[in-house]
């Protein structure tokens, strides 16, 4: 793991272009150029937005579904498996399926048309919608993971705590606020950090669904921009600087989130 990271960091200080040797040392030029690179900054903004959407949707949705499925019976067992299926599928497979649903004359718009909508949205072709569509697909695939973690958390809460709270006169909302939510703190930590990392490294869905478009950089993410810069533009040194910046960002966000959430675990 350390070797490729070390090599990437090394490349980030060069102008390496495998099709235009020789490679020269450029110091911090690549990293400083990132600060004024519109494409990089757009990709950074997109990545942050995707990460926020994915983290919120997977956690809120995952918790809601987990609470609905926190019951005994074959139906609930089956539903748990159903929600987990997207997690084990390849992101490319999931994206291809969603593409068939979301293209302008795809399944979703055909249904909306039958319901009377004359000009249904261009989920993937409208630049103002495409980023949210991609975020939804990433969140949909990650939802099952959060459901399982929250279910494990819910099933680990002693029933006596709920009973004691009920005897003390707590209604369902109060029990959720004062018993369930605090006891789920470790699950929240795991799901939040994993969702953050998942959002920051979004690539496959972007590549299949939009290829960074429609239009220049509309749905481009940091990972997508790194690949494009390295393998289409041949600017491996500059792409390595992007990868290093991405690495630092993900590491920093993960550590900060982990620290804050663990502090909450202790206090609760």
């Amino acid at each position: 793991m350390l070797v490729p990271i070390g090599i990437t960091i090394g490349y980030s200080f060069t102008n390496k272009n495998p099709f235009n040797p020789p490679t020269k040392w450029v110091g911090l030029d690549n990293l400083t150029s990132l600060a004024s690179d519109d494409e990089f900054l757009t990709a950074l903004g997109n990545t942050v937005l995707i990460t926020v959407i994915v983290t919120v949707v997977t956690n809120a949705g995952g918790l809601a579904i987990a609470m609905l499925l926190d019951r005994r019976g074959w139906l609930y067992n089956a539903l748990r498996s159903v929600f987990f299926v997207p997690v084990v599928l390849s992101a490319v497979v999931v994206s291809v399926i969603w593409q068939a649903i979301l293209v302008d004359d795809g399944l979703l718009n055909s249904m909306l048309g039958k319901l009377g909508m004359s000009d249904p949205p261009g989920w993937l072709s409208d630049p103002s919608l495409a980023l949210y569509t991609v975020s939804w697909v990433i969140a949909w695939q990650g939802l099952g993971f959060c459901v399982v973690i929250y279910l494990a958390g819910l099933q680990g809460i002693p029933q006596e705590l709920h009973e004691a709270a009920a005897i003390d006169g707590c209604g369902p909302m109060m029990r959720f606020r004062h018993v369930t939510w605090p006891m789920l703190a470790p699950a929240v930590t795991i799901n939040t950090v994993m969702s953050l990392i998942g959002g920051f490294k979004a690539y496959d869905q972007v590549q299949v669904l939009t290829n960074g478009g429609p239009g220049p950089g509309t749905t481009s993410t940091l990972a997508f921009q790194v690949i494009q810069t390295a393998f289409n533009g041949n600017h491996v040194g500059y792409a390595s600087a992007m990868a290093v910046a991405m690495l630092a960002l993900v590491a920093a966000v993960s550590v900060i989130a982990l620290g804050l959430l663990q502090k909450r675990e202790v206090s609760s």
Partner: protein
Amino acid sequence: MTRNPTLLRGAALAGALILTGCTAGSTGESASSGGKVTLTFLTFETPNLDAKYWDAAIARASAKVPGVTIKKLVSPSADRTGYAKQLDSTGQFPDVMIGLNPAGFAEAGKLAEWSDNELAKYVEPRANTYDGKVYQLPYSAQATFVYYNKSAFAKAGIDAPPRTYDELLDDSAKLKAKGINPFVVGGGGKDSWADMFPLICTVATDVYKKTPDWLSQRSAGKVKFTDPAFVAAAQKVADLTDKGYIDRAGLSRSYADTEQAFRDGKGAMYPMGSWFSASADAKKPSFDTGVFAWPTDQGSSALPGVTGGGMTVSSKAPDVKLAKKWAKAFMEDEKNLNAAVKADGLFIDIKGYTPPDNMGPVYKESVSAFRQAQKSDGVVNSFSQETGDGSLPPGLADKAAAGVQKLLSGGMTAAQFGAYMDSQWDKATR
């Protein structure tokens, strides 16, 4: 609950590093021993060129060159050049490749040069040179035509294809008035390259017809994408969209679905590479398909075409001589050429070759139009598909396709598109 914050932070950081770490580099070698050699061969699959086509062609070439075992690699998308770069960066550069854009690879010494003797059978042996050297067998030509639905034209009262750009606009208006979508254009996701065809046509008629070496002039800094000629070409595309002649639904469709949309009658005209002719003949739509070249303002000929598309061989192949021998056997085998013509509608540029008699009417009409344009000196470069000296810098074709998507979606004006292209050119060549 037992917790170890330090351990957890470390694990999270390690996870982040694993999940985001990436690199490039190192080289590798293929096997060659005892007079036998295993060569990797990079192909790409499309609706026309499926796995069966490639396997049969590989088998025929291998039968002619004993001692060669081929390991087929398939590009995950039509962008085999981008995939070849990825393979190169991980030390897996293929030994033989077909349809690769040699730009960058050639200059970097990664490809073996073809000699005059090896190119003797080719009609235009020096179609794509890099500093005077040839790295790709120029075995075929392809052009961009407008394929049209004859039934839709008849329904709109159009009895002949347009000969001038004004006639094209008039016909589009007539089609729209009859409730027929004039143009099917599309390519979403990884197929955004397929959105380029209207611009390929307008750049041919409005820029390359008057200035054939326009891209070379752009390299020399003598012209810019913001110059009136190029902006006018982009404006034509923007106008077609603004008038509702190009269906924006195509921006989310795959290339295969776009072709199917034309087959399904979801539009009357389909600007597309000549490879569609084979598909139109092999799986005939419910209507007759006609062919015309995108018209110029005055009605003269300006057909965007590109010659090349053949085999390239890695200069680091385990046995370059044998790899070249196999590549030529693949290219020049008559059955392979016939299969390529039937599957991909190629215009073969190998001396003495004639297409099978049983080729369909759309292919024959396309070949006839291409040969006629050649005779009248009416074939010009195909914007973003050029190879050889005077082609776009690496990566710019993808950027152009992204810009065209925004042009088609109405999010960018023609002037902004020109400025965007200049900015991308500067970035690509910095």
